[in-house]
């Protein structure tokens, strides 16, 4: 399908860092360095002349106050000319979907030919804040004119002011945490513990298979340590090859210890990682000799009341994207659904089923998804686009869908087409 300007936008290539559980193999790596690594390795893999890139767009949810615009630091890699503008977007867990679709728009409008999009998150490197009172005191002290008044200001500090504030993964509007929302969706949609565990197990098994047969490994640009003796990280470290339903059943629910069903096993872990995707106008890609993996056919975003079922947004976003694509659910040959929680995936699928759509698990998350692979918020969208586009090429599938639920009751859906 063509868009308003007639420019079709190609997904040329994508890659990512290994996804590692927060606090493990990548814990000393800054988010900006993960993002730069993914971007740089994508250049290496595509042999793209960096001077051809018109813009860099990255997604990030929890930005470091020291690097507020991580995309610009990517575009300031010395491989690039310094004149490539760049911005960072935050659409929560759909941030790198947003980066990709924003890139699509710029190219479609003819504002750009080649855009490097991507996303990054380091949950090992989240900003820890000072209390409001402590920051007030520090600001006042920095403005104090005499030593005496500075000491007097500092004297106001009380022990409780020194307790650091760490950001919680909770909705500012409702105070409900992600896990609580997942718990609520499991209950309201009557999704059993066993169903959730089964889905999680499936995610691990398929991801393990995708790693073993090299399909997932092919997307990964290994992280080479900066210090002698440290280990090379060349695979995702959250995928469990050895787990079973019995083992998963032993885990205790985290968010509702009495009646709950959501466990660490059937949720996605806090993760560090980055992804990058190269998008080009179709004719530009062909002129440069690139064979596109797929094209962006359509996309849509939607939002629901966060106080309802926080992660049920996809059942609004997906129909719009399909409609914009001019295709139907049954036309889809592959589906990549972000897995924040098994209860969320199953709730989304239940919602799709109520529309009369047939759920064919054989084409959904064929290499597992975020429960096994991990979920660095800002980077997941880039991973999904890469995985889907590569697999569409392998299977020669014409239409593929990406569906991502996000904080704030939002969702993003993207339809890719192969030819």
């Amino acid at each position: 399908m063509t868009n308003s300007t007639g420019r079709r936008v190609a997904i040329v290539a994508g890659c990512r860092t290994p996804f590692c559980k927060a606090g493990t193999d990548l814990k000393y790596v800054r988010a900006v360095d993960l993002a730069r690594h993914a971007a740089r390795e994508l250049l290496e893999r595509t042999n793209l002349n960096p001077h051809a890139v018109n813009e860099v767009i990255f997604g990030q949810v929890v930005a470091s106050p020291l690097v507020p615009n991580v995309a610009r630091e990517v575009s300031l890699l010395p491989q690039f000319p310094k004149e490539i503008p760049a911005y960072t977007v935050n659409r929560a867990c759909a941030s790198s979907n947003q980066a990709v679709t924003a890139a699509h728009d710029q190219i479609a409008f003819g504002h750009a030919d080649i855009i490097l999009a991507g996303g990054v998150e380091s949950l090992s490197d989240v900003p820890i804040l000072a209390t409001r009172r402590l920051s007030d005191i520090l600001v006042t002290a920095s403005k104090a004119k005499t030593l005496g008044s500075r000491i007097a200001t500092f004297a106001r500090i009380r022990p409780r002011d020194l307790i650091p504030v760490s950001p919680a993964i909770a909705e500012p509007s409702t105070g409900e945490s992600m896990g609580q929302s997942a718990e609520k969706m499991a209950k309201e949609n009557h999704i059993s513990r066993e169903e959730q565990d089964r889905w999680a197990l499936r995610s691990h098994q398929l991801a393990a298979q995708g790693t073993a047969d090299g399909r997932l490994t092919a997307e990964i640009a290994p992280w080479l340590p900066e210090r002698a003796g440290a280990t090379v990280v060349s695979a995702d470290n959250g995928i469990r090859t050895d787990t079973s339903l019995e083992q998963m059943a032993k885990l205790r629910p985290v968010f509702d210890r009495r009646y709950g069903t959501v466990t660490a096993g059937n949720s996605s872990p806090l993760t560090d990682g980055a992804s990058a995707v190269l998008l080009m106008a179709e004719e530009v890609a062909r002129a440069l000799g690139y064979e596109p993996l797929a094209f962006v056919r359509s996309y849509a975003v939607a939002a629901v009341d966060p106080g309802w079922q926080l992660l049920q947004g996809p059942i609004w976003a997906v129909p719009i994207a399909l409609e914009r694509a001019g295709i139907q659910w049954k036309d889809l040959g592959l589906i990549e659904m972000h897995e924040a929680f098994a209860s969320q995936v199953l709730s989304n699928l239940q919602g799709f089923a109520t529309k009369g759509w047939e759920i064919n698990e054989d084409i959904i998350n064929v290499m597992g998804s975020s429960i096994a692979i991990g979920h660095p918020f800002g980077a997941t969208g880039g991973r999904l686009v890469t995985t889907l586009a590569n697999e569409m090429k392998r299977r020669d599938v014409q239409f593929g869908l990406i569906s991502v639920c996000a904080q704030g009751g939002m969702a993003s859906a993207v339809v890719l087409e192969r030819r």
Partner: protein
Amino acid sequence: MPYFRWEAKDGVAVVTLDTPGAPVNVISRGVKEELYELLAELERDATVKAVAFFSGKPDNFIAGADIEEFVQLKSSADAEQLSRDGQALLDRVAAFTKPTVAAIHGACLGGGLEFALACRYRVATDHPKTQIGLPEIQLGILPGAGGCQRLPRLIGARAALDMILAGKSERAAKAFRLGIVDELVPPAILKDIALAAALRLAQAPFRRRSGGGFLGAVLDGNPLGRLLVFYLARRQVLAQTRGNYPAPLAALEAVRHGLSHGVKEGLKREAQLFGQLALSDVSRKLVQIFFATRELKKDLGVPGAPPPAEVSRLAVVGSGFMGAGIAGTTVVQVGIDVRLKDADLVRVAKGLVAARDIINDRLTRRRITKFEHARLIAFLSGSDHYTGFGRAELVIEAVFEELAVKQQVLRECEEVLPPSSVFASNTSTIPIARIAETSRRPQQVIGMHFFSPVARMPLLEVIATAATAPQTVSTAVGFGRRLGKTVIVVKDAPGFWVNRILGPYMNEAAYLLLSGVRPDDIDAAMVQFGFPVGPITLLDEVGIDVAQHAGEVLQAAFGERMTPPPALGALVKDGRLGRKAGKGFYTYHNGKKGDVDAAIYPLLGVQPNGGIPSAEIVQRLTYAMLNEAASAVADGVVRTARDGDIGAIYGFGFPPFRGGPLRYLDDLGADRLFAELQRLSERLGPRFAPSEAIVEHARSRARFYT
């Protein structure tokens, strides 16, 4: 006035030195004569209240005195007069009735700094191109236009001696810290600040605060402290030069004399000593090397070579010590993308860490800021695949020294490289033509033989085969030069140049070991001769297994005269590979070299007997090398004697003051060497038999240099 121009601005004469038709300013006879006239004119002009001196050259203030004039000096008396003339001119500058300001941007060296020191005030830019120093010592002379007098009076004897004796140039920030320059400013405001300073000086006299603090007062400020300073400096100079270089001692004397007898006497002594040094053999040799190096910088290695192809991206295969060294040095020196490839990621990671260490070292030594450091680090990357090779204009392989491996790497690279790219092999033992046999584009295959450690060793041998295209040669030479290396182009013959002439030298050292000479006695004799390290230490540094392998290759090519004695094998079998293994001929503790390891004697099957005097050690080692060097020249291994000497000096530290092996051979006389070799050959065996080249030179009284 061809050299100087000036204009008045707010009562300040803005003087610009701009030598016509030259890239840099030097203080030549013409400049000197014109400066006298200019000063007279400015003195007469009542509207001129002060003078500020600028350079019209980008990134260069004054590079020094005119070395061409210096080379033409015929006698010590002439040289002394040259020094006196310079002193007189700068005395005139110093005594100028109006305030003078030197506005320094770019190199301010030698005579240039002496001129600036004669000005009343100095403003310098904080730009990295602004380098300040007195490099005269490196040419075997001393600062002879008052530098030995003015600098110690400005910054104290200790700091001045540090600068003069090392001949090293410093960044402007260091010069500011030392008190050589009075203000440090960004280039954009150099002119404003220099003019403002000139006006300020015209209104009120300027008194410089004496620096140096307590230590300065104790050591520089009183005769007793100075005695200690000079004693220590002399001891250090003697330890470093072994008495082979007279200039540092002369400079020490010029400074000392001036401080104890006053400026006037000091200048006189300075000129005298300058006169003695200028015509000395050592200085002549060092100047010849200076010119040879300068010529080589313009020489692309083949007659009429096309300009080097642009290299904006380097790929390196093999992430061992050499590969990592090449990668790190490229990032630091050239600042381009480097992609490192090896068989597995653990090795790649190790190589990247080693390459990064070279960049880190620049940060530790504060040569770069942490932001520049972060930028440079981002140029390095690596993989176990050939990803990223598609945009590399040059690939250098530094994989295992085995023909089949190198050929395979070549084939794999040609699959992924752009068709115009150059493939270079960093081999020390394998003929490039053999590697190129499997190439689809043999005209783009070349050798680039680096020396270890790459970051520090200044020489690069570029090896062209018969099939190598001129553009390939110029690209390799040009890239080597961007790496900061001195490059010689040599023939694709076993050992190339450096290892070939080192072979007999190393073999002879092994013969000496087997006859019971202590390793440290051999090393000490050669260090006294002028080498930076002796041959046994060199073996430990290079790796005894590596040296053994190189020896075997030479033996295979040249037969009996290159046969290594069976000394190294026993050590290699024992795992004594040198420094890298933590044990060799010497002991190593935490990377620090210790004494000779007594465990080697039973391995060698000898007891140290101290029987051979050091003069004979020197003779046997050097003559073996000279014999082979003559033969290699006859084989056309180097294009000129100049390349041969430069290669030996930069490749393994042949004593520079002897001018290189071929110049040394000329000095010795081929006939004398012939006779000595014959004598040695009768006594020690046919390995000393004079080579055909020596026989021929002795017969025809030919010289390498005419």
